[in-house]
């Protein structure tokens, strides 16, 4: 044994340190050294913010949304350094005197360099940017809360008094902007245009919604099974079409739809297998999965995984 000493057993009244917070379970090293490191990183980030904002302003004549600055560094993303506080500091520093903040009527904060964008132009741009935000907001809300696609007509209706071309122009410009990269379009079989936010309603889900809207349940089943067999690959438990409403297959029609799917020549790659122990029905596309592999995958899903928790 090395360096062993008898345990000190203080009297009970010596246990608590005067003034110590009984709930404090951790202490931090708020040292000069740590503060200096944080300060240095903050200075580095200021320079990068200025570079980004000036580039946006000069090269694209575009305002930079404050929220986009989080992408510059994990310290901004995860809150070690507060973006708003840094911007405030920058406005007081001569080397960043051109970096200016403009806030839209609904509170969206943009940053720009007045060397490249005049303040009145910036204010006008902020209004346009705000309109884009509103359009994106409607699409995102539909995707997130209603779990549905947004018809173009709904967006036109937002500006009923204006030429629908204005809305179209805004939507078109949004397609090239990183902050609206999640706004996607899909067309149904008739060519009708729908919008969705891929952030809240991903492309695959949108495609499934379109299929459900078409009412061609056989195609819904076949395409879903093909996708699962191709991408993962894995078999598809028939129960998902009954349990998950997104597929739009009426539960009482599922058996008949399955029979029809398996019968039709355009879906001849879709195969049905039944697990001998659980009785579960699985489907797969033999375009992408061989029978023995499909059976092994089904067996793993039905009993293998449960036996290996």
């Amino acid at each position, binding site marked *: 044994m090395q360096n062993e000493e008898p345990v000190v057993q203080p009297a009970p009244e010596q246990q608590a340190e005067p003034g110590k917070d009984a709930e404090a379970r951790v202490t931090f090293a708020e040292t000069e050294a*740590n503060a200096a490191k944080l300060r240095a990183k903050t200075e580095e980030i200021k320079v990068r913010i200025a570079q980004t904002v000036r580039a946006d302003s000069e090269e694209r004549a575009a305002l930079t949304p404050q929220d986009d600055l989080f992408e510059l560094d994990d310290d901004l993303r995860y809150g070690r350094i507060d973006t708003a506080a840094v911007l405030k500091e920058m406005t007081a520093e001569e080397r960043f005197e051109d970096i200016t903040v403009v806030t839209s009527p609904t509170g969206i904060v943009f940053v720009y360099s007045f060397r490249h964008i005049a303040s009145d132009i910036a204010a006008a741009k902020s209004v346009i940017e705000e309109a884009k935000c509103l359009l994106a907001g409607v699409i995102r809300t539909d995707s997130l809360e209603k779990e549905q696609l947004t018809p173009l007509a709904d967006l036109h209706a937002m500006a009923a008094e204006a030429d629908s071309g204005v809305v179209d122009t805004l939507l078109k410009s949004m397609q090239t902007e990183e902050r609206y990269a999640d706004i996607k379009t899909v067309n149904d079989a008739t060519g009708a245009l729908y919008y969705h936010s891929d952030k809240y309603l991903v492309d695959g889900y949108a495609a499934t919604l379109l299929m459900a809207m078409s009412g061609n349940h056989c195609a819904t089943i076949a395409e879903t099974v093909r996708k699962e067999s191709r991408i993962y690959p894995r078999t598809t438990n028939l129960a998902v079409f009954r349990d998950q409403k997104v597929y739009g297959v009426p539960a009482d029609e599922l058996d008949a739809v399955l029979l029809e799917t398996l019968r039709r020549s355009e879906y001849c790659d879709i195969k049905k297998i039944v697990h001998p122990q659980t009785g579960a029905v699985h489907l797969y596309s033999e375009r992408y999965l061989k029978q023995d592999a499909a059976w092994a995958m089904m067996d793993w899903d039905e009993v293998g995984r449960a036996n290996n928790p």
Partner: protein
Amino acid sequence: MSYGGWTGKILRVDLSTGAITTVDTINYKDYLGGTGFGWKVLWDEVPAGTKALSKENKIIFGVGPISGSGAPSSGRMVITSLMPINKDLPGAGHGGGAWGPELKYAGWDSIIVQGQAANPVWIKIVDDQVTIEDASALWGSGTYHTTAEICTIMGSDAQVACIGQAGEKLVSLSCVINSRHHSAGGGGLGAVMGYKNLKAIGVRGTGAVKIAADAATWKALNYKWLSLMGANNNHVVPMTTQPWAEFSDSGSRWTANKGLYWGAASPPVETGYCTDFEHPLPKDCPVPQNKMGRRTHKGFKDYGMSGANHTVKMNGCLHCPIRCHISTDVPQLEQYGVSRYNENTCTGNSILSSIMTDPRTTDSTLILSQMSTNLTSDYGFWHDYSQWSNCFNWARTHVMTTLECSALGLPATNINGLPFVGRTPFQNRLPAAELTILTGNSTGSTPYTTGTPFAKSVAGDPSGEQDLIKLILGLNYITSNNPTTTPVFSDAVANGPDHWATIWPEIGYFNNHSNASSCFKMNHAKHHGVESFGQVGCLINMTYNRDPMNHTHQNVTVGPPPATINTLMKELFSSPTAPSMFNDPAGSDICFLPATNYHPVTNGMAAFAAACMVELELKNAMITCDWMMPLWLSPLKSKGYRGDIAFHADLYSAVTGDTVDTKGLQKIGLRLLTLFRALTARQMDWAIKQVDASKKVNMRTDHDYMNDWMFDKVGDLTTGPAHGPGTGIPNSASGNTAAYATTAVPFTGGTQLMDRADMETARNLLYAQLGWDTATGMPTSATLSSLGLGYIQTALPALIVG
């Protein structure tokens, strides 16, 4: 100690002398904490050949520098010792709850318990005040009563780790329980405490953990950590198709969904969509991390709607946002005199219910499992990830054939003078008196007499579990006011499959040859073995002395498509620019699914397996949760589902102030794994020399093997080398049909059948990654030197090659 994280002192309690002393943590800093401290203490202080149940053995209750820091998933603790369950080899048990952090708040980095008390005792720790208390009044009671009594003395905020009757009876299937249902299993560590007459350790701390970083840095690091976390097992995609998620996986424990409730909460709580950080929902108040605790609904995952309806909430360890323990309310249990409120997860819920026949009536699975949880937590009974119950069910139901009895060389008649052939192992091995208690008739024949333990087991009567646990532990089983026990039955079934196989060779035969056994090697269970990336799972399972309790590889088996996972793991472990010290620069594949065919082993798989093992050592030393870390995947679509391999190093650096990078931390982990390897080799070498002093252990052949059932097909004429009673028997000789079909071909058709030559290659590749010698499976001299383990070569010169 100038570093953050550690308290700076380790507590040593000698139960023989009553001496209570401290050790400076700085002496062990190179081993981090937890099992790292444990391996080092065992190496330094416990001589080769020491028995697990002896005064000379030591048991180390460990935490690490991260414990108590409040970092996510850092609430666990480990217990390290020689294990009685498997030839007195070193091993560890891992427990959740809140005991570990409390030990840090009391000011201790670990506790070394040694010696043996003359009478039952418990250790009371209140900060620096440490005393050995009389436990006579607690001896014989379960963990619930023990915990309640100690908390009455110490205060309700004390944390208590204790044993039940299983540990007191010194059975190998015993564990240590804290926080009512958090168990540290690990091969009979309860019995190690029991042998030392140590009933419990109660801890209450009022101190704090010092973090070397400033608050802003620490907060950002924690927020980053949270953003990279998925659900339990770090499953990073939801179980069902959800609009916000690009992928889903039916195997995922990210079960939260609209319309899915904690049904027994008052009022019921809807889990809803619990999105990742890139998809904040309007009602996330104010950010998604506030709902992380709802992501994992194990009540539903494990028991379907029955489980969902009886789930009060999901619970878990202190400081963990991922709640993986199901808190249930099952009123039906009250008729059996046990609490309706219980809590556990996964196989912790099925220790006894897995030897019951489930009638599959309403809630029956849940009732049987929660009865099991209630009893096994109270008695402190552990199972080895189901191998024990597999043996039990086989011993009760398998009728021995002529070929089997012949191949095993069994005598013509059993203990009761009846033919071996045509009877089950229990019928053959248990005395008539014990069979009468268990089954109601002296030959153990079916149908069993109604009301007997085996009859209840077959009928799925939950009270059967109450009867069986007493008989298994050798406790009095009262029938018709006639206290009685079943000592032969108890000795066989309560001490684990290795002991069982030693005294009943047919159990060894089952473990080694039957694909129903799920035994990996040395009669211990596989745990995410061949089914988890094939050779990767096998290499991991063959390295440990119990079921490996390593989820590092398993945690990436569920998530985005396997091709994506393969790409991401190759970036880390199979690339010219990989950040890991374990790497295949040639860029071979790592991950695949059985259904798309296993592949012959690659160097990338070996690098991945090596990294997984080293990562486990780091998790158990720092301590972070094996079921969540490392964050090699994340739910973040914007990052292509990448996690952050540097995160463990960043975390360690922030807490301790001891700055390391990924490779630097991996090197520390390799040090711990290599020390564990040397400990195992030293103990095995001693045992081999007791039989033949001229021989020495060869870890490759004596330790790193796999049971035959993973290689053999029905009717095979050959088999692998023998490794104990009942092994090395070709299927053609025993007529074994619990094997792969004769048509199975490795690496084709979705089979999990493995190939012996390929696994030899796998060993070669793994050893090369770890710096271990190909022929002996031991670390080379150069490896030991580079890891600061030169003392191992000094101690074991005959086992180390240049």
